[in-house]
């Protein structure tokens, strides 16, 4: 099919025989920015057949969970969006082995509900677990505050299945928590944003849930003192998460409008009691510590935090010690994962030129600190020519191009929106 014929009606005719008419639909909401037609296969084999059809007719395809990621990074819709909504089974959960296998369309909320009775969870806490499908979480490298103690998808994913070029159904890893057989395809797929294949199944190691959760908060008059206190606390006691919020973000989280240190910790009742007594000794008496339902509710607010008033959100990453200096350039609204060297920066610039300059300045600064800045959300009016990803140095970029060609020789997997235009 030549590109001119890639209109939704023709696409529907091409894929109806594979997935059935009933499993095709027009995109809606965020999906409108991702794809022209939504195709919902019911199995990896169907996906493989769709992939082969796409490759032979040069139809571009993009895997879509809730559409949150691709709606931001695609400047034009792909031909078809692969919805994993029908592939949402939990394939196996072994509480005593602490592993779980789920199809790519299962959501984090569904997994955690299945594990709750055994006091376990998959300790990745990106915003809105009920919207977070496993495939999208892995491919989009989504994370939350608990990355400090538990790591991210790249640390917890122990097995992956995906449909690759030629419709090959490929797997890497397995179902055991320690495994070095073969190349690490889990790392390859994590953060690949759908550009190398369609993830169909994921296997994770899971963790016990802490019996008690505490959240400590403390106000500061400036950013530098909050980061200093964060480091002191981090060096003194084991923490599960550690943030510094700028005043507007603190206010939006329901705290006083000041620079605020937020520290999560927990464990057994004995550990929680100890931490509750110990943290004020380190930070000073005017820190506030919440436990129980209050702490859980705050963790959810922090996890789901979204600064609706902003026109764009950036994700900055540097070595942790470099982050305060980078954020000093921004002013305004940001939420820093202080122990991880990652910050969500919320900008409210309404003119494209101003935004471009700001992103450029931050990128220069971040590169000097061997870090980088990504645009993770942006209002459509400003999407224009903004580069979503920073540019890797030439030798790394060459390898990435080779990686893309090796995994996607026909260039159909979510092309044109990843680093360097891959």
């Amino acid at each position, binding site marked *: 099919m030549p590109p001119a014929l890639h209109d939704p009606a023709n696409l529907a005719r091409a894929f109806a025989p594979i997935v059935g008419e009933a499993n095709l639909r027009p995109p809606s909401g965020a999906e409108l920015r991702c794809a022209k037609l939504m195709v919902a296969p019911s199995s990896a084999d169907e996906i493989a057949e769709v992939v082969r059809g796409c490759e032979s007719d040069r139809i571009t395809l993009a895997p879509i969970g809730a559409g949150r990621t691709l709606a931001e990074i695609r400047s034009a819709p792909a031909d078809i969006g692969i919805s994993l909504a029908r592939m949402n089974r939990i394939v196996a959960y072994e509480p005593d082995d602490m592993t779980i296998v789920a199809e790519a369309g299962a959501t984090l909320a569904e997994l955690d509900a299945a594990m709750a009775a055994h006091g376990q969870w998959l300790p990745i806490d990106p915003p809105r677990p009920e919207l977070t499908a496993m495939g999208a979480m892995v491919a989009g490298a989504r994370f939350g505050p608990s990355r400090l103690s538990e790591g991210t998808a790249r640390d917890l994913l122990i097995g992956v299945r995906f449909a690759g070029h030629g419709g090959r159904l490929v797997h890497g890893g397995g179902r055991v928590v320690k495994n070095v057989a073969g190349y690490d395809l889990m790392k390859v797929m994590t*953060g690949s944003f759908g550009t190398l294949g369609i993830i169909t199944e994921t296997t994770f190691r899971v963790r016990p849930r802490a019996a008690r959760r505490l959240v400590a908060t403390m106000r500061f008059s400036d950013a530098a003192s909050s980061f200093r206190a964060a480091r002191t606390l981090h060096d003194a006691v084991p923490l599960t998460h550690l943030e510094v919020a700028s005043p507007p973000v603190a206010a939006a989280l329901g705290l006083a409008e000041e620079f605020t240190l937020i520290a999560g910790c927990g464990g057994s009742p004995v550990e929680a009691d100890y931490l509750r007594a110990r943290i004020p000794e380190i930070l000073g008496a005017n820190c506030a510590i919440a436990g129980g339902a209050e702490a859980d509710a705050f963790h959810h607010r922090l996890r789901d935090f979204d600064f609706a008033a902003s026109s764009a959100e950036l994700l900055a990453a540097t070595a942790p010690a470099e982050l305060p200096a980078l954020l000093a350039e921004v002013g305004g609204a940001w939420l820093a994962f202080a122990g991880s060297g990652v910050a969500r920066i919320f900008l409210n610039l309404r003119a494209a030129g101003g935004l471009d300059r700001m992103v450029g300045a931050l990128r220069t600064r971040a590169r000097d600190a061997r870090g980088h800045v990504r645009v993770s959300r942006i209002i459509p009016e400003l999407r224009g020519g903004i580069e979503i990803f*920073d540019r890797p140095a030439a030798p790394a970029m060459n*390898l990435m191009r080779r990686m893309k060609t*090796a995994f996607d020789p026909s260039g159909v997997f979510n092309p044109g929106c990843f680093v360097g235009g891959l």
Partner: protein
Amino acid sequence: MASSGNSALDSAAVAELRAIVGDDAIVSRPTELKVYECDGWTIEKSAPELLLRPRSAAEISAVLKVLHRREIPFVPRGAGTGLSGGCLPVGAPVMICTSRMNRILAIDYASRRVEVESGVVNLHVTNAVRERGFFYAPDPSSQMACTIGGNIAENSGGPHTLKYGVTTNHVLGLEIVLPDGEIAELGGPAEERLGYDLAGAIVGAEGTAGIVTRAILKLTREPEERRTLLAIFAGVGAATRTVSAIISAGVIPGAIEMMDRLIIEAVEDAFHAGLPRDAGAVLIIELDGIAAALDAQAAEVAELARAAGAREVRLARDESERAALWKARKRAFGAVGRLAPNYATQDGVVPRTRLPEILREIAAIAERYSLKIGNVFHAGDGNIHPIVLYDERDADETRRAIEAGREILRACVAMGGSLTGEHGIGVEKMAEMPLIFSPDDLIVMSELRRVFDPEQRANPNKVIPAPGSCVEVAAPRRQVVL
């Protein structure tokens, strides 16, 4: 293809390489090269034709450009402690050893990062930061000798990876010299990756992507305190059931290691470590974290062990008792050397609830093959290390040792496990790869490898069996029959 044969390593090539690294960094005399004929997988042997010991990434880059132009394959080597024949030259005449690249380049406590050259010995990283209350978490039992480059190539683990993760969880960035001589910096001190996780793909690639020259690693804060328990059992069944009981109770110890009777006796003969000679198995269980909670936790774990059948649970009373336990564990492989002229350390994984079953299976296999097999391993991860004793002068026993090892791996796979938890595929397990990976999986993995090494000259004939080839372990010389 023979192990070295038809290479273009003529005197002109050697002269070119000599000019780059200097006389003192080149070894070409066969008697001296014999030292490099194997790693810890001693069943197969094959010395390189030339050994280079460069001092920098720039030298390695110049060397690889020469080898690339002359189409000469090479094999990287760290300390040679690998256990799967990873640095055995198979069709690679030149060995490049990183032992001179052993500087710790920068320590950033505020960011918890350390930047090292790849030839740095694992334990030296921890030694450099311990005083400030930090450590480098992956702690292979060989950590006194093995290098960070070798750890990266194998994605090594160790006793404490149960709680703290394996090498890949601690490598943020690396510098690699690609087989064409280009130097690439991948990842960096930031946790978030920009673009594909190339550094993540290279960790565990067993030296087939190029030569890693530098790495940025994460440092971990020392726990406040530790409690180290020795749980003593009549047999391995009760010991392995204890492992599941502890994990099911929601306790994640820093480490749970197991030793069976054969190993206990070997350790006692060699070091008089104070382990009970009449025990069928012991577990070393280490808890770490907030001091205030540890005594209660240790009591809980001791109770779980007793309930599962431990006849006694001892608590190390001080640092010297703790050190003695760990010394016994970490030197166990060495102690085994006294039991037989040779031994092969296997490395398989099962879901940890299947440990009792796999140990029964191993005992049955030992009996079937008339071999002695000891077990000392990372029980908390389900990562078994059966140690098969044999005498390489006895061809039949050697053959039985290899066959028994393979049968153990097949049993692991049948229980939903894997061929290797931390030692790598190397040459040892290539033939078993199709047990867990389909032809399509292997094709895609070779494509990934060729992203870094299109001509497959970095550590050739490893990890992935050539399609349609029949790989035959013909100890002590490897034949790759194409």
